[in-house]
């Protein structure tokens, strides 16, 4: 094949639905500040890609929002809700910040690790669960807590944990 020198083109990588989703976020910001929509855009693209972001997708978002790719990488690596590797069907985000730690998040983590046989950052072999350590999610009142999908689960105990896991298909 001949050598090719060209930039990634958002329109060939992003699906039409993704573009519509990003456009929805763009309406919320001034037209000369497209980069403001980067977090929403990454969320849209991540959901369309089965829960994780590839470098090509981040480049495409950068192209779409007219910002440097490195700025998109910075956002995607900073926030814990973006995944840069494939994840399981259910992402268990356990908070280990101060409040949760004082209320026993370490026990929760140990229990989950034992039950699922995986450590932080890993996915079960059946691709069902991914265990992730996150920073404070702002629910200290119900510490220890975790997030699964869009749901918060608070005042966790190992027993309660088993119940929650059993309900997830």
């Amino acid at each position: 094949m001949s050598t090719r020198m060209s930039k990634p083109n958002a329109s060939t990588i992003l699906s039409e639905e993704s573009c519509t989703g990003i456009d929805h976020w763009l309406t919320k910001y001034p037209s000369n500040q497209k980069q403001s929509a980067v977090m929403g855009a990454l969320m849209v693209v991540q959901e369309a890609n089965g829960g994780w972001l590839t470098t090509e997708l981040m480049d495409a978002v950068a192209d779409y929002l007219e910002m440097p790719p490195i700025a998109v990488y910075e956002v995607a690596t900073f926030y814990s809700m973006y995944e840069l590797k494939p994840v399981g069907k259910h992402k268990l985000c356990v908070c280990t910040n101060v409040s949760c730690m004082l209320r026993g998040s370490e026990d929760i983590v140990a229990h989950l690790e034992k039950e699922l046989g995986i450590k932080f950052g890993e996915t079960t072999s059946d691709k069902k669960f991914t265990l992730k350590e996150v920073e404070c999610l702002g629910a200290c009142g119900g510490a220890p807590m975790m997030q699964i999908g869009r749901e918060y689960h608070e005042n966790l105990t190992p027993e309660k944990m088993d119940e929650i896991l059993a309900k997830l298909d």
Partner: protein
Amino acid sequence: MVTIEIDGKSYETELGKTLIQVTDANSIDIPRFCYHKKLSVAANCRMCLVEVERAPKPMPACATPIMDGMKVWTRSTKALAAQKAVMEFLLINHPLDCPICDQGGECELQDIAVGYGKDTSRYQEGKRVVFDKNLGPLIATDMTRCIHCTRCVRFSQEISGIPEMGAPGRGEHTQIGPYIEKNITSELSGNMVDLCPVGALTSKPFRFSARAWEMQQRGTIAPHDVVGSNLSMHIRRNQVMRVAPCENEAINEVWISDRDRFSYEGLTASDRLTAPMIKKDGVWQETDWEHALAFAVDSFKGVINAHGNSAVGALGSPTATVEELYLLQKVMRGIGSQNIDHRLRQVDFSDQNEASLFPYLGQAITDLEQCDAALIIGSHLRKEQPLLNHRLRKATLRGAKVILVNPIDYEFNFQIAKKIITSPTAWVDNLAGIAKALLENKGILLPASVKTLLAEISPNENQRAMAQSLGTGEKRTVLLGHLATAHPQFAMIRTLAAIIAKLASANLGYLGEGNTSGAWLAGVLPHRSAGGVPVETEGLDAYTMLTQGMKGYVLLGLEPELDSWDGAAAKATLKKADFVISLSAYRTSAIENYADVMLPIALFAETSGTYVNGEGRWQSFNGVVNPPGEVRPAWKILRVLGNLFNIDGFDYISSDQVRDELHQQVGDKTANNRAAWQIPNALTSESAKGLQRITEIPIYSVDALVRRSSALQRTIDAKMTDGVHLNTHVATQAGLEVNGNTHVQVKQNGIQITLPIVLDDRVPNDGVLIYAGQIKNLELGAWHGQIELSAAT
């Protein structure tokens, strides 16, 4: 003016400054890592904490604006405690590997740790380890040493303008770098090495080769562009170990281009010529200076006696010093030949008599950043003149509009307001369109001939928009780049550019190359002698000399097959000459093939001399190292040649005398780009048939020295010069299967060669890009011409 008190002493200063600016201006030491005067304030290292009256906590001096009556203590107990604490935090994750670190001995962290830190560490936990990133052939990394000052990140965003470095990750997991594996593409990237306050980013070619305290620092001037950047050369045992910028706000600020920084590798290239050599009966043999010079002069005299003194000519490199160039023309004029030139990459000389004293930039370098609108004609400015591009980039950040007429849709590191991208054959028509659009808008009194010239032109929408953009603001400039100078209709383009400049009240400027200004002043021209004095009978220009053929040549610092407009013709013509004297720093098979004497000359760091930059600034320098072997400075060789030819006035003892003599001849003459032009009667535009060759002399192929810097030759900029670049549309038209064919047969002027295909969407539909100055495609010859493509079998 306000008064503030620092450490008990009063200082008068202006409002709007930060504390660190005031302390720096008054030589009060405040430690810092993230603050840099040319970058935005990040205030993230916290090293510059000082005590401020009525502030409950210590304040960062870099981000604290001054106020009238403010009282500051930089060395109070509170300030020192804060600095000591910050230092302790910074050292938590920093490895204590100074003995094996390249930065050891010249490290800001090391120095400040000694000055402001504790003598022992209390930290016993594990340290962070960060994997190194491959940033390409110029910058070596040791990212575990990084203290996250973000100077490199801010540099890449704010100065190089290509955000490549970033800070991906969060908190302790932050890792400075480009995130993906990639080579840094900025042509200013080497400055990150200078900016890095620790040993995280160091110079790759220099790595592990010397210690800071073993080297001496000596100043010189860079030869590769018209900026004339001030350099500090770091020397150990008579060898240039590395190059750093020397601050000069009027010229290079605190930056230098990678070309100026890493070209020193060429000084020690393996094909360096270190002794005089002569060709006897087709065999090259080393000899001493006496024999070589006698042989050269006797044989050259023989050629003159046989064919007359107008049968010989001299060509000088535009990167030679003013002294060398002046003596070259003095020798030639002394033996009665006016065939002298340095403009090897030019082909249209028809209006040379009306040209200005030298190709003046039209303004000071600093003025470029003040301009409001700029039209650039035929220049890959970012790679051609990296620091002028940087000035223009600053202007665009202030809101200036930059518009382009270029053959390739080059990637710029700033916003381009409007552009016309077409092969050079269409430039004349497009410039005429812009000129006409301006003429219609303005009622400036111009010679009637201008109106006649443009009578038939009706500008299109884009040309009108270009004209409109050029009307922005007060200060405007029109810049003629390297590709405009090399255009077969340079005179016409110059005329139109001058008309556009006049109509837009803009400064007309030339971007030139190397020491071209010096070469013009020194009289290395067939039509003007030193100081720009017209000669009675004009000699032959470079193109004619290298195509028609002369009986004898003197070449100074050149590889004409790579340095001229038609390398193939130059090579063949030189081969036919009776006698060729090559003053060269290198011994190449091409030179061995056509030359009869090779005289080894010193390169830019090895000789004293002077360069004149685009704004007409004379900058003299001394040699910083001794040349190797039998190598001598070219001005001394030319002085002896002058004596051996029995020409008067070659009794110089130092290069200063040569410079002063020329300086006297130039006197107070100044360049004037506004001089009257002869307006031609009619526009002659080439009728473009088929695909046109588009070319460019790549950034790392401009002269013999740069071509031998192995680090620069491994950069993306150097590697992309292979093959024939064409866009998908052209490829399809030529019947190439975009994903099938890897090579294509390229035919130009009857010569056919096979080149790899590079699909490149920057190339317009009416041309293909084949880089100039490359051995691989040398046979294709001229920089311009029709190209035929056919599938390679």
